């Protein structure tokens, strides 16, 4: 579904991604793990067009999409759920969700999708009139997830949902990701929490220092081996 070939990208003089290639199959959960600074988030930002790659190509359903603006990509069916701090803090929870359905083709379904979001995340329904900035970290992350689903994306990119959250909330979030997987969605999940991420994944990629260092089907992954790679033991 998504094919990335020899991607190189970075910020200003700093190159973060060096020659990254990977492919994402439809209906599967692909997880990208790796330590901090490995370039995982940068990869997602390059896919959705927030960052223009310097080299390489990105194909979505065999169509090149590198260089496209993020707002066109959403219409093409790719949505990114950024980390929870990227919600509209001075707008209400409901306004945040409604904005998730901004692309013209999605506006008709906004009421139905809103209802679905509230069913999936009952706590957001309680706080629908509250400003998003007043939410706790976990609720903010849930809002970001619910908002990302509002556009009914074909490909969902989720960026570090567990970042800075307590284990109980992380568990809750991963249950929801498992539910989404059960619905047959195509998901790319970027995570530091290898344990959780590998548990929910079909495919695992390990990134180290801006490169794909290793990849395997999730069932073949031995966490101990992975941790050795992580800590260079």
């Amino acid at each position, binding site marked *: 579904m998504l094919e990335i070939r020899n991607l190189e990208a970075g910020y200003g003089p700093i190159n973060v991604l060096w020659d990254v290639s990977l492919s994402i199959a439809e209906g599967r959960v692909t997880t990208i793990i790796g330590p901090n600074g490995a370039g995982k988030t940068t990869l997602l930002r390059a896919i959705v067009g927030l960052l223009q790659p310097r080299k390489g190509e990105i194909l979505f359903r065999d169509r090149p999409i590198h260089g496209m603006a*993020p707002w066109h990509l959403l219409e093409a069916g790719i949505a990114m759920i*950024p980390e929870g701090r990227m919600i*509209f803090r001075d707008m209400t929870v409901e306004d945040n969700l409604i*904005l998730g359905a901004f692309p013209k083709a999605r506006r008709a379904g906004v009421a139905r999708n809103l209802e679905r979001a509230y069913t999936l995340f009952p706590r957001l329904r309680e706080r629908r009139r509250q400003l998003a900035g007043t939410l706790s970290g976990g609720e903010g992350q849930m809002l970001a997830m619910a908002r990302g689903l509002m556009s009914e994306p074909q490909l969902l990119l989720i960026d570090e949902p567990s970042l800075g959250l307590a284990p109980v909330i992380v568990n809750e979030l991963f249950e929801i990701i498992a539910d989404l997987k059960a619905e047959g969605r195509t998901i790319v999940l970027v995570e530091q929490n290898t344990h959780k991420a590998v548990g929910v994944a079909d495919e695992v990629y390990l990134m180290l220092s801006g490169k794909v260092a290793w990849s395997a089907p999730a069932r073949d992954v031995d966490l101990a081996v992975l941790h050795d790679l992580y800590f260079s033991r």
Partner: protein
Amino acid sequence: MIELVLQALYSGFLQGGSYALIAFGLALVFGTLKIINLAHGELVLLSAYIAYTVESRMDVNPVFAIPFALVLVCLCSVLVYYLLSFIRKDRELNSLILTYGIAIVLTNALLMIWSADVRATTSPWLQEALVFGPLASMRSELIFFLVSLILMGALWWWLARSWYGRAVRAVASNREAAKLMGIDPRLTEILSFVVAGILASFAGVALFSYGVIHPPLGEALTLKAFTITVLAGLGSIPGVMLGSILLGLAEALTVTFASSALQDLVGMILLLIVLFVLPNGLFGVTGGRG
């Protein structure tokens, strides 16, 4: 004495209405682009001069100037946006210098077209005094206060309820995240300039129908709008309304108890106090100028 104070408060309150129109245009543009449009006051003044021309040439009530003003001022406003979009490097300062340059061009264009003379409406209907107990005002002051309330209401509805209004707020709140929602920020930027132009058109006609205008007035208007914007924090409608009325009151009290010449001084001093003392305005949460 008390009557004098009451009267001053009443006039200041009414004046606050059109200040809100001017200030909100500035705030909206600042919200989406993070740019201070120093030519904003001149756009308001342009509308006021269109009202003057309509009145003096066509001999009709200046309120009929509004359609002409809307077209011309919105065009100019979008033109400002178009020029701004060429700036790539060091946007904050270069755009400030650019809009300052545009302000000079507009001021001098006004001077060339309409001369340096002070103008005011001659319509007796607009200037007729309406008296409620101890409070008196011109008819035009009341009309435009109501117009301003209606416009602010409409604006509130647009920002809170419409797709594009929400998009404008989303871009102001978090530009990156807005892009991820499928919003093209450039669209909201143009929209904010158009809306700023609409508000400026009404404000200009209001200004002409109860006050006096002359070409150098634009800069003071921009500074007043900026004062209100920093006073209100950025972009909240109730904040802008309150800030505008506060400035209107402060000016009216100065005129009553000191001199009308010192009216503009109050706004400037208020601006400096707010900049130095209140890092985030009265109601603000965002920003930070230090």
